[in-house]
């Protein structure tokens, strides 16, 4: 019997002046991950951008549970999205979508903070 892979869900938010689309965010994650851990590493990670709200600039990425640290490193090293300076802030990590959504709901980013990054 094939053992089901354990997954982790990482909630993130993008702080910056631009509003990137889901496709652009997805490409940026893959680009950064591939640059750091190589094509094989990226292929084995099972990374998938599950959800992304373009207005709120919040999203959820799924990854294999043993590679969650790699994804955190990726988030830390991402400096630009669509050639504009942006910061990817990790909000929380959970084993379920429900858990990570709850964490994202708890952390509200004020307008003052958003203004700092404009």
């Amino acid at each position, binding site marked *: 019997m094939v053992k089901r892979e354990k997954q982790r869900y990482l909630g993130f938010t993008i702080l910056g002046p631009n509003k990137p689309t889901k496709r652009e965010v997805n490409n940026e994650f893959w680009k950064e991950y591939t*640059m750091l851990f190589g094509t094989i590493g990226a292929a084995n990670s099972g990374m998938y951008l599950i959800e992304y709200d373009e207005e709120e600039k919040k999203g959820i990425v799924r990854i294999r549970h043993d590679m969650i640290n790699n994804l*955190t490193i990726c988030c*830390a090293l991402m*400096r630009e999205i669509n050639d504009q300076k942006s910061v990817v*802030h*990790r909000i929380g990590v959970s084993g379920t979508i429900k858990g990570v959504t709850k964490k994202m709901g708890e952390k509200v*980013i004020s307008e*003052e903070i958003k203004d*700092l*990054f404009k």
Partner: protein
Amino acid sequence: MKGGVIISFDVYIDKNLFKKNELDSIIHLLQLFEIEYAAINGYSINMVRKANNHYLEEVDIENTPEKRSTSASPTFVSRITIKEKNDRELKNKVRNYRNDYHIIAVEPISENQARWAARDGRVDIVTCNNHNIAIMQQESIYSLAKAHSKAIEFQMKPIITAKKSTQGKLVRQYSKVYSYIKQRNVKFCISSGAEEIHHLKEMDTWRTLATIFGVEYSKGKEAINKTCLEIYLRNVERLKPGYIGEGMFIESEEEE
């Protein structure tokens, strides 16, 4: 929380960050990143006291974790990083600034300076960043740092801001320095080295990022809270009026 309370202590945030933006917004940002202690490079003790109106005497070593976890505002700590070409100037500055700052860090630009900083009693931290990483690859520095219980600071800003072509090289150099630290069991701390808003991140992210140059996850936790807090609390004690030795104070006649 797994493995006890983590106190996020960012040992280096540049004061220019506070000049350009309003203090309230920065405090919000620090709260978002769950930074509980922020050492502001270039802020003296008096400036720090004015900035957050938080009196340092309130900090107690025993109930600090509980107190900080419930408190909303971060505690600001004063810090200065001294970088001088001239050795004599460097020594003079360290002597002059000792009573004005909680944390004194030296960014050595020569091997002599690095060795001196590692053994001088007034220096708390020897900084390691992209500018002096080549100098810091001397084993003798770490023997001295161990003997005189100095901490080596890794600034993470160079890693995130470096060009992709030099990033790998820098990580390799950092890992070499960390191997010396690990061999000799020297204290070390991790700081953001933030000079602008985009360099600020939560301390847990730095801890994870440090794993790329070989820092174990558990050691990273110590580097973020324990080492920095120890230095700070020791110096708060030292800077109290009438301090003459560990746990010994002279009571002034005026108070009586």
